[in-house]
């Protein structure tokens, strides 16, 4: 009988705790308008368009406060910078570094950021390279060096008499 009572108590405790869990869920669900940057270099633009001037940048793991959304663009505040970020740069998930649960390092050096990753990451890539001869990672690294600055793109569009549809990149 005593044993049965004890089990009942445990049962109630479990139910009560599940209730607390559900309350916490709903509180978290309401959302505080915070999102994380899920790309290495996120570009903050002056307007919600790929034609908007780049007014700042955010790095992998940075948390941003979302102020408003227009189409696929979100106006955000990130470490004092304000601008529009395309939703492809953002995730609702918190990006953690390992078990410590801290935000990813703010500085964007490739190696440090890669260490922030889970699953297929720089460590896995290094291991994969060890076991394979027929790979040309040097050429891949070379490819990644070529980055066209937004200003150069604008000059290119104008020079080719290209008239983009405003609000492109949705």
């Amino acid at each position, binding site marked *: 009988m005593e044993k049965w009572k004890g089990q009942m108590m445990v049962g109630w*405790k*479990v139910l009560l*705790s*599940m209730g607390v*869990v*559900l309350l*916490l*869920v709903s509180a*978290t*669900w309401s959302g505080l308008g915070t999102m994380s940057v*899920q*790309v*290495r270099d996120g*570009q903050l633009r002056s307007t919600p368009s*790929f034609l908007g001037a780049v007014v700042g940048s955010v790095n*992998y793991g940075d948390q941003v406060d979302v102020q408003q959304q227009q189409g*696929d663009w979100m106006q955000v505040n990130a470490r004092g910078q304000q601008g529009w970020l*395309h939703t*492809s740069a953002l*995730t*609702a*998930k*918190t990006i953690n570094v390992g*078990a410590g*649960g801290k935000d990813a390092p703010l500085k964007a050096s490739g190696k440090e950021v*890669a260490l922030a*990753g*889970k*699953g*297929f*990451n720089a460590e*896995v*890539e290094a291991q*994969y390279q060890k*076991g*394979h001869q*027929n*790979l*040309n*990672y040097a*050429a*891949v690294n070379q*490819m*990644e060096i*070529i*980055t*066209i600055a*937004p200003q*150069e*793109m604008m000059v*290119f569009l104008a*020079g*080719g*008499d*290209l*008239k*983009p*549809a405003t609000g*492109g*990149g949705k």
Partner: protein
Amino acid sequence: MKSIWISLLIFAAMVLSACETMQPMVDVATAVGVASGKITQSQADSLSRSTKAVGESTAEITPEQEYYIGRAVAASLLYQYPPYSQAELNRYVNVVGQTLAQASDRPQTFGGYHFQVIDSMEINAFAAPGGLILVTRGMLRCCKTEDALAAVLAHEIAHVQNQDGLHAIKTSRLTAAFTIIAAEGAKQYGGQSLSQLTEIFQGSVGDVLNTLVVSGYSRDQERQADATAVAILRRAGYNPYAMVEMLTIMKSQTKPGAGFGKTHPDSQERINGVLSLVGSPGKVSPPAARQARFERALGAG
């Protein structure tokens, strides 16, 4: 009593498995568990990690992981097809391509979009997940205008945007990967989990490569990529009819069952599909300055 706490946390994870904001919640729950001495910090960390992994297995692979898969796919392709080292041509293709990518519905990927001409006269182009795009010299020869080159690149950007490469990876591999990631914290596999993950990584890269080089995407994926490309071209200001012109030249030069012909639907089928989207606005006549820079860049190559 510990087992009750652990059951509760697993319950929390289940409740939250469809919710993207579950991690902060589980962090709160684990923090409570640790503070009250019901579970150890190590158990809390493991559960927190496991919960995150459960969330990931139901969603798409993260952009960061996509990036590493894409690098491996490109590294393999660039071994088979050496890069064509012509700096001016490569830069020009990158200016056109990266500008187009900004006009896509997915302008931002983890490592960004990068383009490389490869030294092969085969008519072909490949998009590795995450935005590493390769195009052969043979394919460039099918382009008579910058608009046509833009059409080729926009089609490849469309595959990246639609994540067609990632969809080629067998679900069982991803499930296995997420299981290992989840177990990693709990059991602290270390080297063993790394080698298992690497094996799954290798299989996943192989799935993508096989689709890009041997089997090709489905007709629906190709039709969708053409439609997406037309939208990108219009946004950037190019004449989408250039895709029809490029496909027509390709059709006359591609041997069925070789290169692009092996992995893509019949060019006439694609031409008809694109025509149904763009109508028949007639010959593409780019402004003189655009045509001049195109000829200069391709002449250099």
